[in-house]
């Protein structure tokens, strides 16, 4: 809502500095978006960012009421009177749509000259209000709308029929609008029609065919009250927003229609000359809103705000807002809401009005005394802990949009159905991501394009799947690309699968995970032979490994890289750490090297060593591994065993026995030869 400072002060006759006026309006809740000097004049254009509840402030009159209340001044009442006339309007009005238009006032004006000039103060106020000048009649109508908040529409009397009907549109009924568009309406749309056709989209926009031009010399002016619910959402549905729809859907004063018509008529006669008919009004009385009454319990006011305001002061504030204070009985105040305040419905609304005029700054700050929530172990803190762990391991957290390009899913062979956005900003943001992989891949590519050779990133976020039970799942994923051969003079190591495996095991250990099993992974993003699934109590909670070469190919990334993903909510374990006293007895270590032919999983060697090593085997390490002979596929394994007991000093003799069992076992099971 834009207006001139001088226009406002015409209604509230005070002297007020522009800066002060800005602060004052803001303090009242009328947010000032900008204040700009108007042309070369000593005047200012105020642009207010109105909240949707204050339809009444879509007029200079409405803003003046607010300012007057705050300044404790009376508003300058404008008495608009129209000289009597005997002319009866030629047009008849019918209200067919029940409840949609409870009040419809109209007047006809004849023999005026629409090519005359209207005074500059009107044109300036319109310009400042951001309203384009069209022709004198339309300009005057718009000016009065800016002034009083009542949108009105003029029809060329020669271009409309004898009976005006306010009715709902027929299904698929067409109407040609002023902006030269044609809208196909539905049964929920209200139209103004004559005997033949829909002339206007009621409360939203007039029709092209019946519009007023410079040649027009006779008009029919509509000044109606449309029920906000009937207008609401219509303009938006048809992608049009007008000064009129904005006001009607928020609620226009249902008692101002005739006043507005009088003012318009006076201005037209004054500047364009002509004659006019009497004003006629058609009503559906039972649909005109009640003058609402609200009871305010003064002790509720104190409880809600936290401090007491004297009842006299309360009454004064309410009166200053044009609200009728009826009575005060036992702390209960009955207030009649005026016809322009659609937003005041319940006691709390009145409490806000009083607090607002009194000033929010005057409400004292009071310590909150509430029962504390139980401190529950929150998922938030656990996931933060995990993020910090990875950050300390050199991983950078990223956050990506939840929506992605559809193409990337095809490139990743993701075939299951996804959730799509019906109205995406653009095609790159049209599908809700079913995995964090697409986002991380995009991050990888863009960072590689920027010349990075080392990318270690992770993200925590929801992924979305079309599923009737649970459509969103919290995921925790990471991606590692390390081909920085020029890292540093003392570090030339390149990240490999076993670095990833260590990371995952350490991470799970940090999260107090127990009973973890690794198994061959079927994750479609991962290389089938260089990947593992992580399972806890039989449930797969995540996977990690080298990214599938197909993805390298599809995304044009030549070098290998790694990926992991976990179900975030499955990563939080009850911490079960108990302190163990360390053994007082010495440990015994033995190193054994075996030559083992063929391909054997380390897991198998580990299992047997564990079994044969007995209960005092406290540590078992593979400290060297290499292929002895490529042809014969013989590998050399060097193990370090540590035994220690909590109860006694172990003797060499008993360990020797165990060692020979191990040698024997490895020979029998794996055909292993002990290296001398």
């Amino acid at each position, binding site marked *: 809502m834009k207006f001139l400072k001088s226009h406002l002060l015409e209604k509230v006759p005070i002297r007020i500095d522009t800066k002060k006026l800005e602060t004052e309006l803001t303090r009242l809740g009328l947010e000032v978006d900008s204040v700009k000097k108007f042309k070369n004049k000593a005047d200012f254009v105020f642009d207010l960012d109105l909240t949707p509840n204050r339809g009444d402030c879509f007029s200079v009159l409405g803003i003046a009421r607010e300012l007057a209340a705050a300044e404790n001044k009376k508003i300058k009442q404008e008495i608009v009177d129209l000289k009597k006339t005997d002319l009866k309007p030629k047009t008849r009005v019918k209200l067919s749509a029940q409840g949609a238009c409870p009040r419809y006032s109209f007047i006809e004006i004849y023999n005026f000259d629409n090519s005359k000039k209207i005074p500059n103060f009107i044109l300036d106020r319109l310009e400042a209000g951001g309203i384009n000048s069209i022709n004198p009649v339309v300009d005057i109508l718009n000016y009065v709308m800016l002034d009083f908040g009542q949108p009105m529409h003029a029809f060329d009397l020669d271009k409309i029929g004898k009976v005006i009907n306010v009715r709902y549109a027929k299904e698929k009924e067409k109407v040609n609008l002023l902006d030269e568009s044609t809208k196909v309406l539905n049964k929920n749309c209200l139209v103004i029609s004559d005997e033949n056709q829909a002339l206007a989209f009621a409360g939203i926009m007039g029709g092209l065919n019946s519009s007023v031009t410079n040649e027009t010399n006779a008009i029919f002016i509509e000044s109606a009250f449309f029920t906000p619910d009937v207008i609401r959402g219509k303009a938006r549905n048809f992608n049009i927003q007008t000064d009129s729809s904005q006001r009607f859907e928020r609620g226009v004063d249902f008692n101002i229609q005739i006043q507005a018509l009088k003012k318009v008529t006076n201005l037209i006669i004054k500047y364009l000359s002509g004659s006019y008919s009497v004003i006629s009004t058609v009503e559906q009385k039972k649909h005109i809103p009640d003058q609402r009454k609200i009871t305010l319990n003064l002790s509720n006011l104190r409880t809600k705000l936290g401090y007491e305001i004297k009842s006299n002061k309360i009454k004064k504030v309410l009166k200053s807002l044009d609200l009728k204070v009826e009575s005060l009985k036992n702390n209960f105040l009955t207030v009649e809401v005026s016809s322009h305040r659609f937003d005041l419905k319940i006691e709390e609304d009145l*409490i806000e009005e009083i607090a607002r005029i009194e000033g929010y700054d005057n409400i004292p700050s009071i310590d909150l005394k*509430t029962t504390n929530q139980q401190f529950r172990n929150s998922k938030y803190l656990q996931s933060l802990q995990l993020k910090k762990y990875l950050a300390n*391991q050199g991983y950078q*957290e990223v956050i990506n949009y939840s929506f992605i390009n559809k193409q990337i899913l095809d490139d990743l062979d993701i075939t299951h159905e996804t959730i799509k956005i019906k109205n995406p900003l653009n095609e790159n943001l049209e599908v809700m991501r079913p995995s964090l992989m697409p986002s991380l891949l995009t991050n990888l590519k863009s960072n590689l394009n920027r010349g990075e050779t080392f990318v270690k990133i992770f993200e925590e976020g929801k992924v979305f799947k079309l599923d009737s039970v649970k459509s969103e799942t919290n995921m925790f994923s990471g991606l590692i690309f390390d081909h920085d051969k020029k890292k540093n003079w003392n570090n030339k190591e390149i990240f490999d699968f076993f670095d990833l495996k260590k990371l995952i095991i350490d991470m799970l250990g940090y999260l107090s995970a127990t009973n973890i099993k690794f198994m061959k992974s079927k994750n479609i993003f991962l290389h089938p032979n260089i990947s593992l699934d992580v399972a806890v109590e039989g449930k797969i909670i995540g996977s990690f490994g080298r990214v599938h070469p197909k993805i390298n190919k599809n995304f044009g990334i030549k070098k290998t890289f790694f990926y992991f993903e976990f179900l975030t909510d499955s990563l939080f374990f009850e911490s079960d750490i108990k302190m163990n006293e360390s053994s007082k007895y010495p440990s015994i270590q033995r190193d054994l090297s075996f030559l083992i032919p063929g391909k054997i999983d380390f897991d198998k060697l580990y299992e047997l060593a564990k079994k044969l090593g007995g209960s005092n085997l406290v540590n078992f390490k593979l400290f060297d591994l290499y292929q002895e002979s490529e042809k014969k596929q013989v590998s050399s394994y060097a193990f370090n065993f540590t035994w220690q007991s909590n109860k006694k000093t172990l003797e060499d003799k008993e360990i020797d026995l165990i060692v020979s069992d191990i040698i024997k076992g490895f020979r029998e099971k794996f055909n292993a030869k002990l290296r001398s």
Partner: protein
Amino acid sequence: MDLSKLKADLKKDFNSSSSSIDLQNLKVKYLGKKGKITNLSKKLSTFEKKHRPKVGKKINELKLLFNELNDKTSLKIEKKELEIEISKDQVDVSLPVDTSQRGGLHPITRTIEKISSYFLTKGYLIEDGPEIESEYYNFDALNIPQDHPARDMHDTFYLSTGDLLRTHTSPVQIHALEKYEMPLKILCPGKVYRSDSDPTHTPMFHQIEGLVIDKNVNFGNLKKELVDFLNYFFGKDLKVRFRPSYFPFTEPSAEVDIMDQKGWLEIMGCGMVHPNVLKMSGIDYKKYSGFAFGLGIERMAKLDYSISDMRILFENDLKAISGKK
């Protein structure tokens, strides 16, 4: 045996020793099995009885002198030897280390943590809620009926499923009201979505919602709670302004502004929970009241990290988000 010569030799020998090996040799030379002082002691019995105490005393003095010289010299030698050892350990400590591992949390996460850590100490429970919502939770239950002009303030993304992406974190309020017993104190950080993109808006951004429900909660409490928080966040005593505003789910409603170098800066929205909201969620609104507040994380991060274009936050350029050059 000339005792005074022995004494002079002893002094001379210690003076000329320069390593711990020299010292060991001296020990053998004087106090070893065949050492000069040892020999002297052995010969004590050959002296006349009346001279023995005097000689014995002299021998003892020699032993004491040996110990004294030994201690003194060994300290000197140890010091010298350590210096030699240290002088051999030469490393160019100005050589660079590998700092290419730019690990860190995203600025948004850091900002959420900064905010949450405050409210956690005040007993708020951190709640998570769905990002895909129904019209009911995102609008209706928050007193924003169909076609209400307030819905125009939310440029909503609608989904193929008929649901929508939440436009604010306020629906978490409703889930919490349905899920928990009163009183209630929750904080909900999370992603929200609006169809908007320019330097100050991204189609996805983050909010934090706070909700307190108890008996006798008032606007004064809301003011105190938020002013305390803002002072904590910015680490100074701020000038804070509460100005009337409108949210369908609070009444009275307010915007909170803080004063910075350029003037008033809008920082968050808040208000007393609208009775309709409590009613719809089945809370006895005559018994309970409360307040709610919401703030944009990006805006807070922007102030904390001096970000000019919000879109940078989600482009994930490693150099940019890690804040390292």
